[in-house]
């Protein structure tokens, strides 16, 4: 579904990604792991159209989305839940969710998505009319993910959903992602929480200093000596 080939990208004169290649098949749950500054976020931003790659190719369902502006990438069916969440703080939870379905013109489909995310995150239903800027950290994450799936995207990119969350809430967020995956959504997840993530996903890539250094099934990577030494502290 998503294929990245030989991707170089960066900011101004700083090149962050060096020939990054990865692919995600339909219905797959794939993680992108690695230390701070490895280029995980930049990879997602390049797919979402927020960073213009200098070289390489990004194919979505066989068609190139490289160089498209972010709003067009989003309309192709790729939804990006960023690390900073980019919520609309002075709008209610409900309005944030409606904006998630901005490209959906059909009112019935909009309502169905709304019902679905309220079922997935009952907490958001309680906070429906509260302003997004006044939510707690965990609720914000839930809102960002909920808003990201309101347009029923084919591919969901999630950047560090566990960042700054208490362990209980992290678990809730991961459970929600698993539910989405069971419903057939394809997910590319960026995480620092290596142990939990590897138990959860089908496959994973390890990114170090802007290059893919390892890839494989989640269970295999758990037994990989490099992963154990560098990320699991075994």
């Amino acid at each position, binding site marked *: 579904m998503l294929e990245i080939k030989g991707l170089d990208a960066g900011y101004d004169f700083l090149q962050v990604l060096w020939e990054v290649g990865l692919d995600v098949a339909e219905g797959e749950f794939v993680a992108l792991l690695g230390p701070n500054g490895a280029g995980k976020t930049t990879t997602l931003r390049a797919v979402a159209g927020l960073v213009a790659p200098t070289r390489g190719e990004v194919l979505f369902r066989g068609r190139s989305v490289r160089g498209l502006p972010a709003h067009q990438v989003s309309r192709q069916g790729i939804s990006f839940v960023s690390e900073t969440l*980019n919520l609309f703080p002075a709008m209610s939870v409900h309005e944030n969710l409606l904006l998630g379905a901005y490209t959906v013109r059909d009112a019935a489909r909009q309502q169905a998505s709304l019902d679905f995310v309220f079922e997935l995150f009952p907490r958001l239903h309680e906070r429906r009319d509260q302003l997004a*800027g006044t939510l707690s950290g965990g609720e914000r994450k839930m809102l960002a993910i909920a*808003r990201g799936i309101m347009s029923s995207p084919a591919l969901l990119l999630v950047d560090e959903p566990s960042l700054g969350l208490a362990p209980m809430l992290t678990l809730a967020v991961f459970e929600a992602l698993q539910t989405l995956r069971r419903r057939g959504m394809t997910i590319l997840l960026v995480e620092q929480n290596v142990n939990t993530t590897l138990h959860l996903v089908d496959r994973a890539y390890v990114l170090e200093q802007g290059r893919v250094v390892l890839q494989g099934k989640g269970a295999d990577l758990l037994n990989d000596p490099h992963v154990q030494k560098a990320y699991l502290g075994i």
Partner: protein
Amino acid sequence: MTTAKNLRSVPLARRLLSATWITVGLAVVVTLLVSLRYPIILVNSLVTGGMWALMAAGLALVFGVMNIPNFAHGEFFMVGTLVAYYVFTPIHKMLLKNPSPLLSVVAPFAGILLAGVVGAVVGLTIEFLLFRQLRRRSKEQWVMNTFLLTAGLSVILINGTQLIWGTEFKGIPRYWEVRPLVLLGVSLSVDRVVVFGIALVTILAFWLFMRRSSLGRAMRAVAQDEVGAQLMGIDLNLVHMLTLGLSSALAALSGASLLFMFPSYPTVGLKPLYVAWYVVILAGLGNVEGAIAGGFIVALLQTLTSYFIGVGWEDVVPTALIILILLFKPSGLFGSEVKGIWEQ
């Protein structure tokens, strides 16, 4: 209003004692007291207030959504007066020869509406030719650069108008040749009543558009988080075009509506521009709903001053009061939460 919602958690007593509500409350009390003795003040404040509200709402919108401090906003007002004059005067002359009651009622509306449309087109053109080009090249020092750009644009538009249409006053005594209405013992020209009606209808339509429609929501989304808006599939170029078009249409509409008070000449937009800036600073930059309330407050201050102190003091007293308010509440009366998009 968003601010009111946020205050829900604050105890009622503190909420009522906040500077915002003291000022708004005082404004209402003063209006009511004064209007008992001098109803004309209430009437005048409402008529100009409605139009200041439209001007200021447009200015606040452009600042909130695009982060542009628009110092050429007054020139859209000027465009409005010019269009209304050139549409209305020929029809009026024709009507003197062969009167038609229907046309004489409709003609002013046609002039005012067309002014709004032309204003929108001028706004769209400027967004396309100036701001989009700058945005594509560099967003560095954006607020300063666009300030200089709009200041320059204002000079060009004023002098261009002078070159083409000359400096003479192009005004009309009134839109509707009807006898004044008498209300609460005050005789009121029909023009003022209708203009107030236009302001109310426009404000209501604008408010509904911003609150209820999908595009209005997209505009507010861009104001609050530009990247977030793009990720939702919102086309920034479309929103920017819409914002500047809407803002300039509102300014042109108020210029055209007030043609009988402000005859058209090249620099007619400067005073409305300054007033709109008072209002926007008073209400909080980028706060559109606050700007609408602020429009009426500033109009009331101006009318009171010119009535009791003198017309020459009309700008002095509001400015002094705004300085006082800002000393105690630097973020403006309605403490806008919507900060500039590129400053977050």
